[in-house]
């Protein structure tokens, strides 16, 4: 039998802590570059002023360790757990939450989680996070930390379309969702779309799509075309930066797809603001 690789929970805690802090003060370079490029290309003057504020904001955040946005989000953690690793030192879930706890405390990040959706008392340490596990081959643990703000989360939608709705139906669902989000989701936005699977799978795919590099298109030709067409159409809506008008409404559209049932065409649209935070590390 091949021996197991041991990963200690202390390592996991330390990394998650650092990743929570890093994600909240710096954006991935692809996202930042899109914002800078948009600010030099936007022609509507209010929209341009907003984009210039965003560029300056990113500078200040990085240089002074001030969170890019005060909504430091609910933490979503994607874990790819190699099936040949052994986690030592306690429960993996508890380690993830301990990392979040330490990150939000030591990073001066806002605690935005209530322990019960109806009673609504703040948990005071931003836990729990939302953890998605994937068991993969190999002996690595890949961690992606993606804190998500709720201004944009609240504008997300799921549509259970009919197969006959086809590509046109998908496009309409995405455009309607973006229009309805308007200024509330802090445009320019990033649009994550999940197509196929079932009710919960498409929502998961939409969230996951937000963590993909904005310069990387889908490897499926028809999906890639849809990504490009949707981005073009969204940027013709005129919503613009801050919803104050302009061409820069979205920085990117990322679509993930999955097989589905003969009777269905589920589509989930997860709207993310320009503060599209995600950091990945492999242990």
């Amino acid at each position: 039998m091949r021996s197991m690789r041991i990963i200690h929970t202390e390592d996991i805690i330390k990394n998650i802590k650092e990743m929570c802090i890093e994600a909240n003060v710096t954006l991935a370079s692809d996202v930042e570059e899109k914002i800078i490029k948009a600010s030099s290309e936007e022609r509507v003057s209010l929209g341009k002023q907003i984009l210039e504020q965003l560029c300056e904001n990113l500078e200040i955040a990085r240089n002074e360790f001030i969170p890019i946005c005060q909504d430091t989000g609910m933490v979503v953690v994607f874990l790819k757990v190699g099936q040949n690793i052994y986690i030592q030192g306690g429960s993996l879930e508890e380690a993830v939450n301990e990392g979040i706890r330490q990150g939000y405390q030591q990073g001066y990040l806002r605690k935005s989680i209530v322990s019960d959706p109806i009673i609504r008392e703040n948990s005071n340490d931003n836990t729990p996070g939302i953890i998605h596990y994937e068991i993969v081959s190999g002996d690595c643990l890949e961690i992606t930390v993606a804190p998500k703000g709720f201004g944009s989360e609240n504008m997300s939608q799921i549509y259970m379309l009919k197969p006959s709705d086809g590509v046109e139906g998908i496009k309409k669902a995405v455009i309607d969702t973006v229009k309805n989000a308007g200024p509330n989701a802090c445009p320019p936005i990033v649009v994550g779309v999940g197509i196929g699977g079932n009710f919960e799978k498409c929502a998961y795919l939409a969230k996951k799509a937000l963590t993909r590099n904005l310069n990387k298109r889908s490897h499926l030709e028809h999906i890639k075309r849809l990504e490009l067409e949707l981005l073009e159409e969204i940027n013709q809506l005129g919503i613009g930066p801050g919803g104050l008008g302009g061409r820069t409404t979205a920085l990117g559209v990322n679509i993930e797809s999955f097989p589905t049932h003969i009777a269905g065409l589920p589509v989930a649209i997860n709207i993310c603001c320009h503060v599209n935070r995600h950091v990945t590390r492999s242990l």
Partner: protein
Amino acid sequence: MDKYISTPLTNEVIESLQVGDYVYITGLIYAARDAAHKRIFEAILEGKEIPLDLNNNIIYYLGPTPAREGQVIGSSGPTTSSRMDKYTPLLLDHGLKGMIGKGKRNQEVIEAIKKNKAIYFAATGGAGALLSKKIKKSKVIAYEDLGPEAIRELYVENFPVVVVIDSYGNNLYQIINQSS
């Protein structure tokens, strides 16, 4: 057009501002969001004292991140205003003149803005680090138990906002929506 104003607001200043104006605000403003609004709203309905002076003042919909040692305040961008819509008309009827937030307001709020000659500004969502630099003083003045949702008194200097709903009831978001 770029304009510079100070608080407390006067009718004259409010009437001079129009949708689309880029405005720099200097002076005292209050920070309050969901939970604080609920309490203020209930206190007014019950005829109780409220812990801030609404008259001619501005409320900023804000729940900042904690300040580090030596900082005035943490990241300080606007939160979505529509969650305050339920409480806003009553506050406007009780003297509130200005609001800073982000995103759409409902028709009742727009009517109340018109009726009371008030104004709604948008600050840039997701520019919390930059906006924190425009806040020179911050102190919690009520509901400390609400943590990031406590009411704060802020002194701001050249705080950048855009007029989205002016005192005449014009709505910039709607104008943009129709022209596209």
